[in-house]
């Protein structure tokens, strides 16, 4: 088997069950992280009276493997002294036990040790899940070997099988199939929004009346290989604007896509493409997940089981607080639990170890990888709680909107853990995305919260106090309160509870170690670069239930004698199930050269950018490959379809060709028509007052009666200023004598010297669309000299009535539609 080793930090596991005297002389430090403590629990084993460990490696074995496994409820029942071979937990001599265990240990890949695989395959696991026991034993061995090797662990890169890229269905160039099967549904039910000339257009415009344009837009929303995965179907399942019954509509859409897909034959990958060999996720090399600080872990949940209704505590610290799942929740692919309205709760008896072990040290850490479903839940919504109900707890990590809350019982807080310590609202430290959150308590700093390895800078305003009042009858519960009335929605992908407060370096270390199941995928490009055993390696993990994350692409050859020399690499794309992924190509613009200067035994890093690719058939079935625009001497020019010009939109309803003048237009028009300055005191004052009451849009349909009131007010001010200014009025109304009593002015004079100048100035003349001048003139004359005319006053007009009547005639025309409309 071809393989190459990659150095990777060791996974640190738990010291456990060790009387203090046994720790003397043990390594005190690893990976630069202080190993200040060892776990003492109330669960003890019998005293060992045999010969001392002869070497430090044997001592490491004794501490990490032999002690936890030699109990009667584990391997000690059969494989102790006088029992069945191998006697690897014989209690009379740890040195002989060490010799017995060695043939069953894989020091390169502890996960593959026979001691682990035997149990994983069903050999007398003490838990209900074989994988849980296997994980626990693997952690023990990793802890032992990690110590012995000084902190490094080597990952083997194994040559994967050489699969050729499979067939897939590709969209035909012609839109006919789409037009006959799917397009009719889209135009009928989706065209109110998904067209570019909709009132509120929503892309993609797959409901365009033009089938070719719609076809070009719809391709990322249709999955020909698995029609049900099509976005068009999934959105209806998600209740997105169904036209009738959502399940029926989704089925109708799926049927239409299926009919279209059935008419398309699967085709091999384009022979013109420059492609690597293909492989699936399980064919990759498992990555261990990096070095985590777990010296003081007392409960650990990695959720690797992936099924069933129990989440196992794999810390190895007895008793395991295995959590029973209930309510609306489920497993997350790639490890984790998703809570909607459910919880995972341990027994109060098993949970007692938390109180005992944490009270013993007086400090602790809650460390979790979480994905809050939203930033609207509150309560606080309980993410992780060690409590009895809404009023009684030892600790709780919760969520209120954008904040994490840390409630904790101590001598300075009450039995409900209040006052709570929370991250600042304004900082919005909590986001609805995957986050590493760590809550620590120690007597010096009190409570602290770290998000993604960074202290949130929120200091605990409560004095630290002590933990003497903790109640050991509470239960550990995730996703809700023990009383089931404070649900939290989101995912927990890892939970570790430590009985020490992790320091900042340790928190950063655990953050950088990441979470979830990871693989190294080795895409064979030997034939393309003409070098033996050459691969592009990606670290790939299931990012969530719907995607994979690809990161850290490297070129590497498993032949240690190979060094690349000036090999060009351009335009790398990730393929899935026989075709290039439509969305998620982060290396399409890659332009680099594989050369000796940047190549080392760990390969040559090609990009620091990671990307996510949508899953299609699930982690077990999706097959990946790579394509290149250029690799070595092989080239393929990537061409994109020429975008179609947008189809001409349909004609809209005819719109009014008449509009309103807006506020400033009205003001400027009145000033221009009357000759009164906009800055004149009374005019400017009135305009400032009523400005917001004037029309703000030219749309005639937006006209309101309040607009008319404001227009009238402004017109009166302008006309008043006009008539009050003797110079202006003399020019505007030439020959008109404002000192003559109104009664004494003949109708003919009013007509010729007041009404006619107003109409001439304000209305314009000989326009095709304007009010009828004779009717407007008639209205004004009726206003002045009619039976109740302002200029008649039953024969007894006051001296100033001439000016007032003129102002009124002016304002009635200036404030009318002749100015307001345009």
């Amino acid at each position, binding site marked *: 088997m071809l393989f190459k080793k990659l150095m990777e930090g060791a996974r640190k596991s738990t010291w456990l069950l060790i009387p203090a005297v046994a720790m003397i002389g043990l390594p005190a430090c690893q990976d630069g992280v202080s190993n200040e403590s060892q776990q003492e629990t109330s669960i003890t084993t019998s005293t060992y009276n045999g010969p001392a460990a002869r070497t430090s490696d044997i001592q490491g074995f004794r501490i990490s493997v032999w002690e936890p496994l030699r109990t009667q409820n584990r391997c000690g029942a059969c494989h102790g002294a006088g029992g069945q071979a191998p006697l690897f937990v014989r209690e009379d001599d740890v040195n002989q036990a060490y010799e017995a265990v060695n043939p069953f240990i894989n020091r390169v890949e502890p996960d593959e040790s026979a001691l682990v695989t035997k149990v994983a395959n069903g050999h007398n696991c003490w838990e209900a899940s074989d994988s849980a026991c296997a994980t626990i034993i693997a952690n023990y061995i990793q802890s032992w070997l990690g110590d012995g090797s000084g902190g490094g662990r080597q990952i083997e890169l194994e040559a994967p099988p050489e699969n050729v890229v499979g067939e897939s269905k590709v969209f035909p160039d012609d839109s006919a199939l789409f037009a006959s099967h799917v397009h009719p549904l889209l135009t009928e039910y989706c065209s109110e929004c998904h067209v570019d000339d909709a009132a509120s257009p929503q892309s993609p415009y797959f409901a365009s009346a033009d089938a070719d344009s719609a076809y070009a837009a719809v391709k990322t929303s249709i999955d020909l290989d698995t029609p049900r995965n099509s976005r068009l179907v999934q959105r209806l399942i998600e209740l997105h604007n169904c036209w009738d019954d959502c399940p029926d509509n989704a089925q109708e859409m799926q049927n239409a896509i299926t009919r279209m897909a059935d008419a398309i034959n699967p085709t091999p990958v384009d022979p013109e493409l420059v492609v690597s060999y293909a492989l699936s996720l399980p064919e990759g090399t498992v990555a261990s997940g990096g070095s985590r600080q777990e010296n003081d872990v007392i409960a650990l949940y990695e959720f690797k089981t992936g099924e069933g209704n129990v989440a196992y505590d794999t810390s190895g610290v007895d008793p395991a607080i295995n959590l029973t799942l209930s309510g609306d929740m489920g497993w997350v692919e790639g490890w984790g639990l998703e809570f909607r309205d459910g919880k995972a709760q341990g027994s109060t008896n098993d949970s007692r170890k938390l109180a005992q072990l944490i009270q013993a040290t007086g400090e602790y850490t809650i460390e979790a990888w979480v994905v809050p479903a939203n930033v609207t839940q509150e309560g606080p919504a309980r993410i992780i709680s060690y409590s009895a109900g809404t009023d009684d707890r030892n600790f709780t990590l919760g969520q209120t909107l954008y904040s994490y809350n840390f409630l904790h019982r101590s001598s300075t807080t009450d039995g409900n853990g209040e006052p709570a310590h929370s991250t600042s609202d304004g900082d919005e430290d909590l986001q609805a*995305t995957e986050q590493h959150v760590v809550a620590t308590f120690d007597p010096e700093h009190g409570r602290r919260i770290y998000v993604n390895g960074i202290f949130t800078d929120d200091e605990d305003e409560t004095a630290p106090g002590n933990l003497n009042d903790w109640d050991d009858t509470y239960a550990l519960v995730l996703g809700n309160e023990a009383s089931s009335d404070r649900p939290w929605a989101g995912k927990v992908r890892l939970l570790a509870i430590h009985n020490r407060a992790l320091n900042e370096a340790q928190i950063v270390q655990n953050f950088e170690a990441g979470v979830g199941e990871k693989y190294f995928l080795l895409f064979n490009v030997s034939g393309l670069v003409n070098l033996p055993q050459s691969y592009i390696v990606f670290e790939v993990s299931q990012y969530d239930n719907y*995607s994979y994350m690809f990161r850290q692409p490297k070129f590497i050859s498993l032949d240690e004698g190979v060094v690349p020399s000036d090999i060009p690499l351009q335009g790398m794309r990730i393929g899935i199930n026989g075709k290039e992924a439509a*969305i998620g190509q*982060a290396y399409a*613009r890659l332009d680099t050269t594989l050369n000796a200067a940047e190549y080392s035994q760990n390969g040559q890093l090609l990009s620091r950018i990671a990307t996510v690719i949508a899953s299609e058939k699930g982690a077990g079935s999706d097959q990946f490959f790579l394509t290149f625009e250029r690799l070595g001497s092989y080239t393929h020019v990537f061409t994109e379809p020429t975008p179609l010009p947008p189809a001409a939109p349909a004609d809209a309803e005819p719109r009014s*060709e*008449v509009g309103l003048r807006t506020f400033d237009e009205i003001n400027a028009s009145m000033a221009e028509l009357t000759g009164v300055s906009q800055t004149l005191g009374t005019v400017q004052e009135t305009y400032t007052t009523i400005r917001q009451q004037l029309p703000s849009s030219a749309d005639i349909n937006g006209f309101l009666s309040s607009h008319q009131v404001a227009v009238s007010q402004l017109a009166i001010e302008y006309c008043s200023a006009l008539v009050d200014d003797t110079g202006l009025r003399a020019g505007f109304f030439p020959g008109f004598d404002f000192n003559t009593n109104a009664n004494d002015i003949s109708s003919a004079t009013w007509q010729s010297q007041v009404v006619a100048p107003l109409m001439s100035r304000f209305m314009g003349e000989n326009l095709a669309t304007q009010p009828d001048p004779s009717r407007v003139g008639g209205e004004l004359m009726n206003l002045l000299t009619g039976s109740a005319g302002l200029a008649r006053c039953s024969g007894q007009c006051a001296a100033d009535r001439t000016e007032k009547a003129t102002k009124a005639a002016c304002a009635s025309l200036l404030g009318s539609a002749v100015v307001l409309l345009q």
Partner: protein
Amino acid sequence: MESQGLNLKEELRRTTQSSVTGLPPEGTAGVITTRASARAFFVDGTNRAMFSFTMLNHLCRDLEQIKDPTRPHDRVRQDVARSPGGDSRVFFNNCVGCHAGMEPLTQAYAYYGYDYPEEDMEAGHISYTPGVVQHKYQINTSVFKDGYATPNDHWDNYWRKGPNAALGWDTSLPGSGDGAKSQGQELANSQAFAECQVTKAFEAMCLRPPVDSADRSKISEITTNFKSGYNMKQVFAETAVYCAGD
């Protein structure tokens, strides 16, 4: 100016932006780098607002209309969640449609910000830090730590390919560059920009949006004229004649 009723035609004086704001000439980019624009869109945030509103105001395109998730993802920054709420479908179908093309263009504003004294946002001024990426480009980097970390103000227009090629980019320009000035030229020389200005003039003069093929062909005709000289007075004149009727 308003209270004094000043006549802008007579009172306005042509000058250079750098003499008013203190920006070096190479740091100016027309309306984008004015104080008012900085106050509105460079203030706080991540500078994406400047790009979004530039597209909306000057190209008449809301980002929603030009989403294209098929562009390369390599420039999507670290502060963009790839799995919002634990569901990466949201990223694939919504977020990345804008971010994939927007990020490499918004990088042009990497040296711009708006500094203001605490509690008095109006008293601030545009800040320009050539060679030093503004801190706002580096916030929330742990949301997706393997995302793009902005090193400079180099921009690329990914939308020259794919469906947004229909915006009509000027083929005589390179489609990439450094800083807001050249990025502004990229946007301003597009067909979409010219068409947007003509459409706005059309709506101002005709008091309605274009509704039929006659209106659209007129806009197209005026747009063609506009692109030879970019004279807005001429655009208003032509649209006024068209809508004046008889």
